[in-house]
């Protein structure tokens, strides 16, 4: 299991103390004591000591193998089990997966409660009537309805105990009218959703050939929620970007190398061409040439630096080649990657903890510093000697690795060269390293800073590279201190370690800076554009720094030129000043006030621009987010964020991501979708209404805790606009229809009861009733749930605004649900009263036979089957042979059933014995009544739909009409124009 979401190598070392124990025999007398912390969930630290032979040695994560780790590059290890079972870090981290239900289902539950209320109501009304009639069966000792023998009866009909009988009747009635509650709805919905998920999984347009990964709906109960997404919260790395890092530029000794053009720069150039056509030509040429360059150079994964000045070993001719040499050496040594030599080709690939690191080592290799072997204590390089320009083998003794952490934002190694020089090699974030430079090491600080800001603007990740030589004495002193810190068992060991490391990482000499491109995934800008047109708000939550985040925002079209930016951050002089005083409380207070003020400013800015069509983008960093998410401010922050078109939260931690998600979800009550690929997104994915995991390179952790897994961000478009919309529509329709058909059927019982003294006698044969929800009406509604399409996939993508039907929940609004229920009520009334009034007393055949209980049951039931199935036929507008087969097949099956059932011996078929063949079918009256009832019961709905489609069309109606009239070429904007009066209120449309 990849706890941190990264499937890459982690270096683990045995303690020097125990390194000599290499075979089984040596463990014969092994006796040691391990003292360590209690079980906890922190994956990134372990504190303990091992006493062995009277010596103490510190244990850290370096010596820990977490549960489920796999050994690589090592055949076997000896180890001691420290924690098992629920004490392991894996189990300590495991949270119960949240149980998610879609909004539609939650509303459906409410409807069921309402129906249950109705059921109880009509049952009790029935019981009251029953009580009255039963009580009167014996009046003054005289039998009233003597044919019921009220004098000698069971408790169910006993006039002397009428109240008890009425109560028992109430229970009977609950069963009898139970058809109002569509119990089979739950079963059908589950089935439909599973089938829908299969269709999602099978969709070829969401299949990613490169990794052989189709889309995967991991839960099936959120399909329709996909059609109601209001806000998307997206991770950046690995989600919007591919997480393949390419080394594209570097700045060494104040000179910038690398001529490639990044995706971001290209997007910006494209925008410029679009905005200023007059400068277009030159830029287009530039674009073309850069494309050509990229195309021509041989592609090496992770390396895309094209600059003739330093390629192919030519850097030795550069004026500052010493600095370049040191720069490359840092790249080649300051990392934790492991070389993997392919025995056949001799080629070396690297396994590194992060893709940037791999990019560095590859770059060093390409420029002549090939790192080829790592042992516990030594690193081996093939180096290009700048003096004789030959490759030489050199080894470096690795003394210490001061690892990267998000707090330190830097990594250093201390190595001893072959000529016994001690070197500290560092790389880290610019904000950190520039503060640690020695005075003489700042030679080209200004130029480097300039370059870094350029790189950042181009959407590149930058790191600053620096080094320093250490004196023997200084090192010894420090090494001792560091060792002590390492072996201490104190709770604040990590802080002490950091502080100790801090002491040596000073007075550095600047070498230069690296720039790595984080490539955007294919089709991301187009996809985001589509989603924005569909009225979906997109927030980016990233751990990156503000500049990078803003640039990615521009690159993927989330931020546009001409958009007003509101930036909330704590990087202002006032806060800096307070920070320098060092009073934490003061700082917190000042920061809080500052954020509150900035939010206020933003809101007033928004208000002042209310009338103008300018859009706003909100950018906020992690530190500020901490305050903005605090109790007092979260509402005003949310208010501000919601009025902005796009929101970018940078430098945010996994926990903040989850908090923001919760804020949006709870604060607005709208449906949120979180999309991410890494373990740091798990919190967010679980918190959101829907979590979509990208099955990318960063392991499966996110995909495992997601509800849907896709291979590429751009598939989100199809997942939401096509499948989401369809599923939403299908489920909404299906539920409405289900209520309709059960009410239409269930209420006929009530009407019949009114004419049967509320005695609890059902109007139909038991088997008709039992099969109603199983054979005669279930398959068409399942076909509706699985196959119905209001518009084709192509048109759903063409008119993204259609998606708003789901967001605004127009197809499952209370008015619509109640409308369908009312329709069911009307149908039941028409079915019952038209049938009974047509054949009350008179003969219904030419041979004088009159209606009886059995014939009325069959006639009414035939009408019910016809009506609900034809209702289905006129409410869907997508007929494949499947729909035809199920709808007409259900009706045909009813006739088939009644014929076969009618031919069974009368003791089995009871009231259905030959009822169709002998009594009903020869009577023209029977068929005429069926026709009349079916058409009359459908006219109300048909009329409503006809007028609504014509005079108050919904968006999908407009699209359908224009399609049927061949006006497909119509642009979405024109359609929107027509739809203005429709039930959709259209929010943001930029077209």
């Amino acid at each position, binding site marked *: 299991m990849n706890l941190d979401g990264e499937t890459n190598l982690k270096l683990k070392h045995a303690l020097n103390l125990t390194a000599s124990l290499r075979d089984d025999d040596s463990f014969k007398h092994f006796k040691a004591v391990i003292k360590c912390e209690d079980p906890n969930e922190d994956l990134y630290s372990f504190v303990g000591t091992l006493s062995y032979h009277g010596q103490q040695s510190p244990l850290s994560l370096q010596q820990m193998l977490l549960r489920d780790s796999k050994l690589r590059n090592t055949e076997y290890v000896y180890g001691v089990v420290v924690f098992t079972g629920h004490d392991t870090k894996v189990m300590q981290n495991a949270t119960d997966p949240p149980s998610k239900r879609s909004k539609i289902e939650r509303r459906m539950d409410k409807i069921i409660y309402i129906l249950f209320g109705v059921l109880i109501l009509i049952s009790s009304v029935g019981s009251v009537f029953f009580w009255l009639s039963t009580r009167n069966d014996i009046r003054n000792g*005289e*039998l009233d*309805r*003597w*044919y*019921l023998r009220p*004098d000698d009866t069971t408790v169910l009909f006993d006039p002397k105990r009428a109240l008890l009988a009425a109560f028992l009747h109430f229970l009977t009635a609950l069963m009898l009218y139970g058809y109002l509650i569509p119990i089979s709805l739950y079963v059908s919905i589950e089935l439909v959703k599973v089938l829908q998920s299969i*269709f999602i999984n*099978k969709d070829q*347009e969401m299949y990613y050939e490169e990794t052989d990964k189709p889309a995967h709906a991991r839960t099936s109960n959120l399909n329709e929620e996909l059609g109601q997404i209001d806000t998307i919260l997206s991770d950046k790395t690995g989600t919007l970007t591919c997480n393949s890092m390419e080394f594209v530029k570097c700045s060494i000794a104040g000179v910038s190398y690398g001529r490639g053009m990044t995706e971001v720069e290209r997007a910006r150039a494209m925008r410029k061409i679009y905005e200023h056509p007059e400068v277009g030509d030159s830029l287009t040429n530039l674009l073309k040439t850069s494309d050509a360059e990229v195309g021509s150079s041989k592609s090496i994964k992770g390396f895309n630096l094209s600059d003739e000045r330093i390629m192919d070993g030519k850097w030795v001719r550069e004026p500052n080649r010493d600095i370049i040499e040191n720069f490359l050496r840092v790249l080649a040594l300051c990392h934790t990657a492991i070389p993997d030599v392919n025995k056949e080709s001799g080629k070396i690939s690297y396994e590194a903890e992060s893709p940037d690191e791999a990019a560095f080592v590859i770059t060093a290799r390409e420029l002549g510093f090939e790192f080829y072997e790592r042992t516990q204590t030594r690193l081996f390089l093939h180096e290009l000697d700048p003096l004789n320009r030959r490759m030489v083998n050199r080894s470096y003794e690795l003394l210490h690795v001061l690892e990267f952490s998000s707090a330190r934002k830097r990594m250093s190694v201390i190595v001893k060269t072959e000529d016994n020089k001690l070197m500290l090699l560092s790389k880290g974030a610019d904000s950190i390293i520039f503060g640690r430079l020695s005075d003489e090491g700042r030679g080209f600080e200004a130029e480097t800073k300039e370059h870094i800001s350029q790189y950042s603007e181009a959407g590149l990740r930058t790191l600053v590279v620096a080094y320093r030589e250490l004196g023997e004495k200084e090192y010894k002193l420090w090494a001792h201190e560091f060792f002590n810190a390492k072996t201490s068992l104190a709770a604040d060991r990590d802080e002490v370690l950091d502080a100790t490391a801090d002491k040596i990482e000073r007075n550095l000499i600047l070498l230069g800076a690296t720039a790595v491109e984080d490539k955007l995934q294919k*089709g991301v800008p*187009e996809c985001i554009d589509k989603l924005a047109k569909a009225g979906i708000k997109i927030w980016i939550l990233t751990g990156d720094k503000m500049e990078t985040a803003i640039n990615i925002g521009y690159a993927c079209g989330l931020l546009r030129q001409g958009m007003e930016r509101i930036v909330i951050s704590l990087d202002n002089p006032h806060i800096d000043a307070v920070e320098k005083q060092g009073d934490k409380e003061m700082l917190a207070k000042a920061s809080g006030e500052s954020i509150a003020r900035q939010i206020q400013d933003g809101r007033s800015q928004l208000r002042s621009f209310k009338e103008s069509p300018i859009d706003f983008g909100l950018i906020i960093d992690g530190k500020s987010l901490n305050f903005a998410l605090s109790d007092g401010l979260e509402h005003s922050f949310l208010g501000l964020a919601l009025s902005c078109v796009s929101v970018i939260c940078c430098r945010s931690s996994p926990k903040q991501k989850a908090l923001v998600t919760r804020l949006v979800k709870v604060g607005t009550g709208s449906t949120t979708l979180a999309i991410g690929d890494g373990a740091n997104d798990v919190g967010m994915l679980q918190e959101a209404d829907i979590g979509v995991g990208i099955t990318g390179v960063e392991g499966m952790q996110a995909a495992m805790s997601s509800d849907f897994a896709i291979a590429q961000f751009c598939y989100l478009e199809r997942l939401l606009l096509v499948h989401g919309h*369809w599923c939403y529509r299908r489920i909404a329709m299906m539920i409405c229809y289900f209520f309709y058909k059960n009410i239409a059927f269930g209420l006929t019982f009530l009407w019949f009861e009114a*004419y*049967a003294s509320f*005695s609890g*006698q059902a109007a139909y044969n038991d088997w008709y009733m039992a099969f109603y929800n199983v054979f005669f009406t279930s398959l068409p509604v399942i076909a509706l749930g699985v*196959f119905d399409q209001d518009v084709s*996939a*192509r048109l759903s*993508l063409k008119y993204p605004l259609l998606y708003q039907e789901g967001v605004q929940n127009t197809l499952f609004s209370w008015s619509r649900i109640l409308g369908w229920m009312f329709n069911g009520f009307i149908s039941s009334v028409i079915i019952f009263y038209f049938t009974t*009034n*047509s054949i*009350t*007393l*008179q*003969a*219904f*055949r*030419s041979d*004088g*036979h*009159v209606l*009886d*209980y059995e*014939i009325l049951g069959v006639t009414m039931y035939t009408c019910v089957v016809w009506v609900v199935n034809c209702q289905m036929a006129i409410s869907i*507008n997508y*007929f494949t*042979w*499947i729909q035809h087969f199920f709808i007409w097949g259900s009706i045909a099956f009813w006739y088939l059933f009644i014929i076969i059932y009618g031919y069974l011996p*009368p003791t089995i078929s*009871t009231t259905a014995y*030959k009822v169709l063949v*002998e009594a009903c079918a020869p*009577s023209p*009256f029977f068929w*005429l*009544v069926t026709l*009349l009832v079916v058409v*009359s019961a459908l*006219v109300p709905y*048909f009329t409503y739909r006809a007028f609504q489609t*014509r*005079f108050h069309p919904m968006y999908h109606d407009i699209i*359908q*009409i224009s399609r*049927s*009239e061949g*006006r497909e070429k119509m642009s979405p904007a024109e359609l929107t124009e027509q739809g203005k*009066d429709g039930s959709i209120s259209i929010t943001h449309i930029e077209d």
Partner: protein
Amino acid sequence: MASEERSSLSAGVESHRAPVRSGWKKAVHQFKQQNLPACKPVLTPAWVITTYFLIGVLFIPIGFISLRASMGVVEIVDRYDTECVPNSYKSDKVAYVKDMSVSKNCTRYLKVKKRMKAPIYVYYELDNYYQNHRRYVKSRNEQQLLHGLRYNSTSSCRPLELNKGLPIVPCGLVAWSLFNDSYSFSRGAEKLNVNRKNIAWQSDRDHKFGKKVHPFNFQNGTLIGGGKLDSRIPLSDQEDLIVWMRTAALPSFRKLYGRIEEDLDEDDVVIVNLLNNYNTYSFGGKKKIVLSTSSWLGGRNNFLGMTYILVGASSMFIALVFLLLHVKSSRLPAM
């Protein structure tokens, strides 16, 4: 509009791919990609108006035809339950009907208003009589009706299952409450024959009531319900019983009594001699005697025809309103 190109491109890829596949594979592919050929009807104004118009064109004639059939039926209905009680008993009709010593004979005169062609069906009509009451409907035993005494688990018939320890055939409330008014008809001095054969469903006679099952221990209890049965005649020939046991759907119902197989002319007076035995007085039900001819559609009831005409006419009306509104509003000029 880049993505638009993309989507149309992908659609192009689909259609390009499709011909390579065999028919079955193509169908499966289309199915999986939810891309099956489909008919997609849309409620365009033309369709709406055509539909309403068609309903109108179809329904109004059907309505008139049915109405004509129904109007052609001649029906004489006579309520006799109040009239056939002697004046002395008017205040306590229940006592009258329960009193075995009082003669139940009664004579009614029915005037034929319009010529009635044979066969003329004779019905009795009861009102406020809940044959569809749950207790009543269940109180019978199909097996016993078919197999008689050979079948003896008849608990559903309680309290009319046993009498003096012996089983009752036919058991249950339905049989026990058998209607027992009887009618005889004459026109002037000439007696009108009433054919009382073939008034029950063929299937009931053949398959639900046993040919060898004779009434046994029937109406021997302390409380006599309705009519008695001749124990010499097997159940399958007791057509009165069979008709009665086919329970009615609604509390007002008619049941076939017999057929008069002679034409009745206008202004004929039919004299009905009846025995007013059956007790509908305790629950306030009405009793009627009905003479009716029949058409291809059955008896006289204008509801069906009227409703057809009504629905057809309103369809036409809606079509007109729709058309007017459609022409008036210019929001969708394309139609």
